[in-house]
């Protein structure tokens, strides 16, 4: 058997085998377009190999011409599929170059059937026998077809396209593929282009053996593709392993969720379905089989908490994505429990909510403890206020006696005026107006005292800082006067209101001022000063300072001064400052002490400015 027949048949069958394998791969995975193009490339190569064999074994020039003419169909297929392969496998190469190469080749194919005997020869005049691989094969002799240039241009365009694609993936960092696939394709394409130029223009007298180059190309690409397939199978193996790991993690998560006593709720917005874990159902009092609907769940939420919860859910749904709420759930049995819910909304590609997943947790015990702590704190604060009012009792009695004395004297004066023959009624009217004013004054003192003595919870509202400082100053004014202490108040202009409970804040300020007054007791009467200043402490806070002209706080007491039961006063309880600090912290503020450079202590605290929604 002849060597040429064996080799070319083997090229054809090898390429067909590879094409079949690759085609099957594409059939199973229609996304693998590279495999399809590879399959077409290999098929084209096989067909071209048989064409070459036909040419070498041609009996007449006409037979040679016909085989060559039909050989342009696999050539077209090879070029187009190579372009497609490069585009899909390398994901590189300029589109216009791809279209140029394909377009030129298609044009060449059309010309092949229209002009001359075929694209390469206008006319084949004869066949010549030459020796190739130790046997005699035919090559053509004739007039070259100038339109052949179109086909060779298309090959050149393909080489340029492949070079461009290789450079791109080289730059991308994928040097291995740039070298093997890109470099291989360029090399073998270039080789076959050169060969076709030399042979068809009659420069070299050898048979066309482009299928050899194409086969090498197919082998290189086949190797790359199959190693990709190998990698894919490795990946899938690893995926299986990680899936097993995932299952393990899921099991652990489930364990954690159960151990943490979390209930899980998942809502599918697109299908409008809800799924809840058993723990979740138990938490909200649903049976294990009951169908869940949002409306039914919301009916179990305490009416007072519903609005806040709904607005939070709405915010999460409209793009915020997460929600976090504490609310009371009312079970069908009438039992009320505190529930903390943390959830996350997932959105689909169009930005619409797709899923909401949340965990719910019973926090009744925590809430109860918090409430007890709050009550205790309020009891303590109240005790502190009562004790402080006790200290101020005599000063406050004086504060009330003052207007009462004025009322009495005015009334007596009026009586005397009325005994006149012609009483001065204007004077009497003035007296009556004064009496009313003094009565109001005494009433205000009593109201302030009652406010301080009342047992009450913390209720925050916007508080005018000037009024706050003024009210407290009115309470201590009398005591300060009696002790020859000058009380200076400096409130910056146009301070915005703070958010707080007026009585609790008065208590803190009162406590600090009374402490300050005690601190200056030892000083000379002219040097006893307590200054209260209120200024803007930051964009969202107001800072209030109580400075005294005493000796300051010894450095070893600076830390302990806020400890409960720490006191430097013979009859002190040591609760004033700890209570004050608790109150300020409950207002999200800070209370601290520092010594002033010019002597004396400076107790300072910050309070948050009330938001606009509160002030309007």
């Amino acid at each position, binding site marked *: 058997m002849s060597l040429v027949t064996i080799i070319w048949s083997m090229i054809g069958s090898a390429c067909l085998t590879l094409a079949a394998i690759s085609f099957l791969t594409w059939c199973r995975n229609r996304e693998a377009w590279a495999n399809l193009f590879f399959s077409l490339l290999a098929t084209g190569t096989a067909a071209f190999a048989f064409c070459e064999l036909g040419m070498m074994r041609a009996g007449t020039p006409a037979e040679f011409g016909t085989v060559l003419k039909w050989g342009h169909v696999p050539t077209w297929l090879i070029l187009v599929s190579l372009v497609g392969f490069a585009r899909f496998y390398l994901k590189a190469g300029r589109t216009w170059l791809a279209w140029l190469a394909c377009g030129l080749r298609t044009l060449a194919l059309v010309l092949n059937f229209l002009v001359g005997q075929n694209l390469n020869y206008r006319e084949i005049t004869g066949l010549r026998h030459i020796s190739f691989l130790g046997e005699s094969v035919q090559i053509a002799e004739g007039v070259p077809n100038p339109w052949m240039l179109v086909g060779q241009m298309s090959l050149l365009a393909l080489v340029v396209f492949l070079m461009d694609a290789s450079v791109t993936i080289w730059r991308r960092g994928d040097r291995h593929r740039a070298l093997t696939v890109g470099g291989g394709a360029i090399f073998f394409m270039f080789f076959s282009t050169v060969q076709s130029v030399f042979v068809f223009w009659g420069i070299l007298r050898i048979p066309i053996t482009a299928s050899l180059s194409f086969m090498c190309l197919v082998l290189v690409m086949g190797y790359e593709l199959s190693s990709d397939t190998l990698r894919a199978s490795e990946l899938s193996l690893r995926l299986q392993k990680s899936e097993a790991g995932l299952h393990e993690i899921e099991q652990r998560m489930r364990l954690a969720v159960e151990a943490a006593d979390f209930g899980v709720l998942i809502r599918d917005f697109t299908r409008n379905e809800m799924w809840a874990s058993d723990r979740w159902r138990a938490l909200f009092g649903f049976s294990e089989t009951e169908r869940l609907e949002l409306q039914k769940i919301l009916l179990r939420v305490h009416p007072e908490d519903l609005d806040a919860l709904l607005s939070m859910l709405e915010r999460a749904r409209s793009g915020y994505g997460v929600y976090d709420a504490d609310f009371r759930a009312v079970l069908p049995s009438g039992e009320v429990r505190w529930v903390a819910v943390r959830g996350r909304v997932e959105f689909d590609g169009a930005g619409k909510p797709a899923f909401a997943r949340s965990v719910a947790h019973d926090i009744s015990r925590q809430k109860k403890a918090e409430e007890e702590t709050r009550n205790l704190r309020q009891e303590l604060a109240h005790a502190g206020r009562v004790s402080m009012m006790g200290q101020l009792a*005599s000063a406050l009695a004086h504060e009330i006696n003052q207007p009462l*004395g004025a009322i009495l004297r005015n009334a007596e004066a009026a009586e005397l005026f009325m005994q006149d023959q012609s009483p001065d009624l204007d004077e009497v009217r003035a007296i009556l107006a004064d009496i009313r004013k003094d009565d109001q004054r005494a009433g205000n003192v009593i109201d302030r005292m009652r406010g301080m003595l009342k047992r009450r919870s913390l209720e925050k509202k916007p508080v005018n800082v000037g009024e706050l400082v003024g009210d407290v100053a009115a309470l201590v004014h009398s005591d300060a006067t009696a002790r020859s202490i000058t009380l200076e108040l400096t409130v910056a202009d146009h301070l915005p209101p703070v958010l707080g409970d007026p009585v609790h804040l008065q208590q803190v300020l009162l406590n600090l001022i009374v402490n300050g007054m005690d601190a200056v007791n030892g000083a000379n009467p002219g040097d006893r000063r307590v200054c209260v200043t209120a200024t803007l402490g930051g964009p969202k806070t107001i800072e209030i300072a109580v400075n005294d002209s005493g000796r300051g706080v010894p450095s070893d007491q600076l830390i302990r001064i806020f400890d409960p039961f720490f006191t430097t006063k013979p009859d002190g309880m040591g609760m004033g400052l700890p209570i004050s600090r608790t109150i300020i912290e409950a207002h999200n503020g800070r209370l601290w002490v520092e010594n002033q450079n010019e002597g004396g202590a400076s107790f300072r605290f910050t309070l948050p400015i009330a938001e606009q929604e509160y002030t309007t």
Partner: protein
Amino acid sequence: MSGAYPQMRDIAPIVYVVDDDESFLTAISRLLRANGFSVRTFSSAHEFLTQRDTETPGCVLADLRMPGMSGLDLQSALAQSPNPLPILFLTGHGDIRSTVRAMRDGAEDFLEKRAPKEMLFDAVTRALGRDSRERAARERQRELRALFDTLTERELEVLSHVVRGRLNKQIAADLGVHERTVKLHRTAITTKLKVQSVAELTRLTQEAGIFPEPVRTFP
């Protein structure tokens, strides 16, 4: 007693009320005026001390607790002036320590702010009377001092012996002068002091407070 000094009767005594509480100040001044007193009001001790006319008789009605200068401070300052006024204190409620100190320093009286008005009027009247008396006494003392200032040093020396009840002969012996000289000094003394008897002379000397040590009648 004031009858003896007619030039002072024309100036009506004034009640000076000092209190930092404006509304109480107005009320009490109304009441005092309605009862016929002349009243001037001051909102601080300092204001009163700088504005008062020392010659005008009257009394002070001051709040014990005031910012700045307290009632007690006012009392001390007033005591150092040439014409101190009796001071009445008004208090909201009794403060023992202050009361004791004020009384020891000669406070006229203590009144609660809401004391019956009769007590207030009586106290004010009493204080005005005391001022009038003290003012008259101070005036008479000034006159007597002026009278005694006309005596020479020798005459004063003789007088000191006379008021101790010593005889002319003894005085002459003590001073180492002739008895007739002593007689001449005594005549000059009685003429200058416009007195007739030794008893009258002794009383006048005591009233003027010329000799600080107690006059010893017997040697």
